[in-house]
């Protein structure tokens, strides 16, 4: 139900590290801060998303959905996810409003079988959702003030030279640290390693198939591989559109019920 955050995370990650190639003189924190400022440059977004869940035997299950997002001048964000498949969840939709002056997002879930919109709580952000290898936290907006950043080194990986940045939370809630590899030439993330609260290696995110859409570089293929349980989640984005002037009415309970 929080797949919209995956898309948001992709957008965030795609622009978060964009300026790094030209900012070698900046500290890791400054790099991250500048990335934060750039991450919401698209006023609105919409895309089709395919999400494939792979278990450790290699069996797969697929979800298809439509995602809509919009940023507001006051820093607020609204997002809507509508499930297209599988058939038994078609029409299910998820609406989220976030605001910088509120600790928690406001969220609603619409189940077509019940024809009711239900307000839901944010829940435990450290938990997996919908069986994916993403957590609620992964797909939300990171508050950089809560983390300490260190530029560890430069490293060549898969034939590309990358910056390696370590982020350690000031107050550990979900991860003990996250290490990110940033492509030096394109400033796009290539890999992220997540460590659990005990400091053990937990999972790895890979970002590929980068497309430039309306000047915004966007990875359209993301894999999150949990090395502890052997499971993987693959996200494919298509028909990505930025700044089409999405109407505010889309982000309402009315639209959730209509589904169009």
């Amino acid at each position: 139900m929080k797949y919209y955050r995956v898309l948001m995370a992709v957008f965030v990650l795609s622009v978060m590290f964009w300026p790094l190639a030209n900012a070698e003189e900046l500290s890791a924190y400054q790099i991250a801060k500048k990335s934060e400022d750039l991450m919401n440059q698209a006023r609105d977004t919409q895309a089709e998303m395919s999400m494939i869940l792979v278990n450790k035997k290699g069996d797969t299950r697929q979800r298809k959905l439509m995602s809509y997002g919009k940023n507001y001048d006051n820093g607020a964000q609204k997002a809507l996810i509508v499930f297209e498949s599988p058939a038994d969840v078609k029409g299910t939709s998820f609406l989220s409003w976030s605001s910088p002056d509120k600790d928690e997002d406001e969220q609603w879930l619409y189940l077509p079988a019940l024809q009711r919109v239900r307000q839901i709580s944010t829940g435990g952000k450290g938990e997996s959702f919908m069986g994916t290898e993403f957590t609620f936290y992964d797909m939300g907006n990171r508050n950089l003030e809560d983390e300490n950043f260190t530029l560890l080194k430069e490293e060549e990986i898969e034939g590309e030279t990358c910056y390696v940045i370590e982020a350690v939370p000031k107050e550990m809630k979900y991860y003990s640290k996250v290490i990110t590899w940033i492509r030096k030439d394109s400033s796009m993330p290539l890999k992220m390693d997540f460590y659990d609260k005990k400091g053990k290696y937990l999972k790895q995110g890979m970002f590929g198939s980068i497309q430039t859409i309306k000047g915004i570089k966007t990875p359209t293929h993301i894999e999150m591989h949990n090395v502890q349980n052997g499971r993987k989640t693959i996200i494919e984005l298509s028909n990505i559109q930025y700044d089409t002037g999405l109407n505010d009415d889309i982000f309402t309970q009315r639209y959730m019920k209509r589904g169009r």
Partner: protein
Amino acid sequence: MKIRHALTIPALLASLAIAPTAVAAGEGFDKLKEAVSINGYLESNGIYALEDSSPDEDPSYMFELRLKSELGSWGMFTAIVQGIDDGKVIDADNGRLINEFDAIYQDKNPFLNIDEAYLDIYTDNADFRIGIQKFAWGRLDEINPTDNLNTEDLTQASLNEESERKIGVPALKANVYTDLINIELGWVPRYVPYRLATSEERWFPPVLRAPDTIPTGTMIGDIPVTGIYEEIDLPAFTLDNSELGIRASRYIAGWDLSVSYFRGYDTMPVYTVPTELIINLENILSFDTAVDALAHVTPKLHQMQVFGCDFSTTYGPFTIRGEYAYFDGKYYTRKTEDVLADEITLAKQQDIMEEFLRELIRSGFTKTRQTFLLEPDFELQMDSMKYGIGLDYIHGDTTLSGQLIQEYIPDYDSHKPIRFNDGGYDTIITLALKQYFLQNTMEANLDMIYNFNFKYYLVRPWLAYNFSDSIKATLGLIWLGGEDEYSLIGQYEDNDQVYAKLRYSF
């Protein structure tokens, strides 16, 4: 314990065999699918009865087709049609193919059901829906006292999901959206009655069953009773008899709030039991008489008003939901045995016998068989209120939901007890626990209901497994009971069962 349905497993396998055919057929509709969105499922359902004393039930099969067709930017047509082979039905003799909107006892099998079929029309500030449709008001789970525009199919008591129970009704709906408030208006031109299982079926409510005998306390002894279950007498098709509901909603600072009003007919059964006493003079010399009774179990309809409100909000990891309804002019059914005991008094029996003798003599001893109609007052009109609060907690793959729901009748008359209420109160607690496993491939559920007044309970653990995105199997247990066998759930205490479902979705 016994196995009643050896066909259950073959039935489940049969649906799998049919599934590829459905897929092939679906492929042939590719062009149609460009214009019309087609989804649906094929489901088989079998039970394993745990008690000997409840009626049999064969496996059921259901095919549901969901069609959606966009009509430009201004509208959409939706139809949900079901084909059902209902294993609960015994000796179907209706002879009709499609579910009717004017009968409580449908008694047909197999049959088609138009679950919903409506046209949506969209404008800038309002949406309209015309056709067979379902409304969904209120914030509680499964029990919504403010939700009265649709009646329910109670042929499986109220144990299946609300979306399955609710009967789509021909209606007009308008949703008007403003910056201040959203308003929903529902108009049902003609009341559509609830549906009940027939008296021989597994889920016929025992509380509606006529008593086997009427005790007289005299030398006549117990009078044997034959129950006759009458069909409903629908109100005339007039504007005054139509049903109307209006609901205003707004989201304010984290709170979803609504107020609502309904004027229409009660969605739940209310019954009278006019009874014919048949006295037959068997031997004119010895004056031996035989007395029999025909109890006509007759549904009654009454209009009422419902004033309601509801809310939902979040607090930390919790979602809090509440709903309140005030029923103005609601009718209740008195207990049959109490009413008949009050009616068949010694004085009344003497009056009847005197009348019998007078008529016998007046007829020259030819009217040896006479019928006397007893029409005691089975119904009581009392205002009441029903309210509840629910709490949901979601943590990762775990969802826990609890509700406390109470009905209160301020003017309850303890000398005239009614069904399903104890001294003016009826209080239940519900609990639903869901846990996902294996990347949401499997879910374990536990649903429970407990009633504090009648001490009845429902415990339903069930397990669902998705073999693929299209094939889902469910295995569950329904365990019912209670101290009062005539309580809402306790009446079904002989209906414990294990059930299995297999669904192919496309």
